[in-house]
């Protein structure tokens, strides 16, 4: 196994996309990095006392405050004159980013702290048992948006977090996916080369919550991108740079890989609704590669 700063032996589920994402981010950032982590799966499975997977300084405080803690760490490093040599990364799951952590994140972005925020987006509160978050996609079956005779799952669209982050006028925003590890590395490197607040949102499949086999993590992640349901793009100083897709696939290919969308497969109206979301993404972000 290649040398990594995110040590094995943690208690993540087999096939956990977040564990893969976190390792890619940290190994790209390197050892001169301080991690500020919100409460969530990642912190729980990697820091069970007295053991820790983190071979860089790591602090977990609460569910919603990693952006503020990171702001304080950054301010302290500035005071000590050490900021230029040390990366500060704040990280959270989708609930800790888009719901309970949104206020602190917005404050950190607005104040201009030199911090990279990474959202590991597995599209629900997985740590507490697959409850809906603001980043749960439309029509997903979760434990708090269950399907039934009066419900086809989560009725609301995914909160446009990258757009919200970009609206703060920050220098760099990117989405990424563990289905494309080299792309993650490239974007983390770029983000850390830029001073100021940066926002990255990485799509990380959760075999347990999404109901797919643990050896399908990469495949499922790739399909989300290839169908246009998880558009990969960057905003560099507000300028959109999409990652183009050579062959766009119908959303059904993605949906059929996961139990959380099983109820949609025999519902043409719902399938169309999801395809419309993908089509809108393809148009909005210019995802289609010109041949």
């Amino acid at each position, binding site marked *: 196994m290649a040398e990594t700063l995110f040590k094995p032996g943690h208690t993540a589920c087999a096939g956990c996309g977040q564990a893969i994402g976190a390792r890619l981010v940290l190994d790209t950032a390197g050892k001169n990095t301080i991690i500020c982590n919100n409460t969530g799966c990642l912190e729980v499975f990697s820091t069970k006392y007295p053991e820790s997977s983190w071979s*860089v300084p790591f602090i977990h405080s609460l569910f919603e405050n990693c952006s503020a*803690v990171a*702001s*304080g760490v950054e301010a302290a490093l*500035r005071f000590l004159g050490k900021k230029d040599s040390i990366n500060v990364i704040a990280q959270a799951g989708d609930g800790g980013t888009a719901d309970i952590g949104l206020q602190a994140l917005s404050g950190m972005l607005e104040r201009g702290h030199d911090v990279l925020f990474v959202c590991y987006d597995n599209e629900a509160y997985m740590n507490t048992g697959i409850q809906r978050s603001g980043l749960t996609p439309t029509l997903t079956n979760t434990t708090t948006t269950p399907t039934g005779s009066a419900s086809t799952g989560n009725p609301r669209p995914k909160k446009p977090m990258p757009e919200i982050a970009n609206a703060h006028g920050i220098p760099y925003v990117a989405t990424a996916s563990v289905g494309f590890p080299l792309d993650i590395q490239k974007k983390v490197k770029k983000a850390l080369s830029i001073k100021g607040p940066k926002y990255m949102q990485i799509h990380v499949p959760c075999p347990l919550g999404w109901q797919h086999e643990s050896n399908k993590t990469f495949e499922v992640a790739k399909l989300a991108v290839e169908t246009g349901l998880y558009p990969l793009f960057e905003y560099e100083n507000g300028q959109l740079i999409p990652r183009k897709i050579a062959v766009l696939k119908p959303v059904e290919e993605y949906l059929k890989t996961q139990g959380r969308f099983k109820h949609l497969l025999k519902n043409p109206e719902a399938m169309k609704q999801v395809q419309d979301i993908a089509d809108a993404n393809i148009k909005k972000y210019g995802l289609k590669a010109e041949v």
Partner: protein
Amino acid sequence: MKQFIEGSHAVAEIIKRCKPGVVSAYPITPQTHIVEDLAQMVASKELNAQCVNVESEHSAASVVLGAEAAGVRSYTATSSQGLLLMAEVIFNIAGMRLPLVLTCANRAISAPINIWNDQQDVMAVRDSGWIQLFAETNQDVVDLHLQAYKIAEDPRMMVPVMVNMDGFILTHGMEVVDMPSQEEVDKFLPPYQTDYKLDVDNPKTMGYLADPDYYLEIRYILEKTLREALGVVPEVAEQFKKAFKRETFGLIEGYKLEGAEKVFVAMGSVCGSIRDVVDELRVKGEKVGLLKVICYRPFPKDAIALALSSVREVAVVDKSISLGAYGPLYTDLTSALSSSGCKIPKVSGFILGLGGRDITKKSIVDVYDRLGGKQVDCEFMGLKQELLKDCK
């Protein structure tokens, strides 16, 4: 040097001399003058600190948590709703053993919304693991903040300290204060140094998940440290007295307790008015005194029981209430006495001054006049009966 100075300015002046590297706060009345002053000091290069203007008290507390975790002395101030919004972080800071100092400009809690003084806010975080000190005067305010950093950063402690000062009464009150010089402060309070920090050359994980195999012991160790603070707080007070040639009392202060049969017990600025009443009653031949609780957490059980061991009757003056039960100071005091093994005096509990209602000398005399009569445990004083006539 003696200065005629507002309480908030006095706090800012002493904090400046303590040289925090990071200051973060969110504005709330009556704390604002403190952080405005510090911001001005940074703006005019009197203070070399990072000033982080946050979007909430939750983030203010989290910013200084992060800064302390990075090994830098830090400061925040808040009040009332702000302290309640911080509450989650307040517990976290103590659990993570970060030696932060926070000023709480004590103020009432909504609803109804009320910006005036009582001590309900701090009671909401009474159980958080912070050392909690209460100032009577603005001289206390200055002296306690300086001692607060010394206590918090003591390697035996590594727990946060909250300095409570009554909102408006102290924060906006002008008094003559003997302000220590920078040289004196530097001598008393050396720069903060610790290995317990986020350091890329010596990486540590902070904020672990502790399961039932570990949690109980980790909390016990924090409790043990708080108990040990009952020794460290007076020790630091002694060092302070030597360094500044000025009286400071550590855990509690007795006033005219010699031969006292009836004693008031109180915290904060109300003790000043009680002293006056005690003086006047003493002139009339009443055997009365005051016990001021300076260190409310950890609660100085033994010192209090000893101070009251030959007293016949006690009047506890609470400026807050655990609704449906008693005043918090009353509860702590009666518990301390009942487990002390000393002879237990008759103890009555009175609630005064909520939401800024003036506690006049007359209201204190009214409390005194109730002693000798029926024992009460949670008696509201000074109620306007005309406002209660529809309240059956």
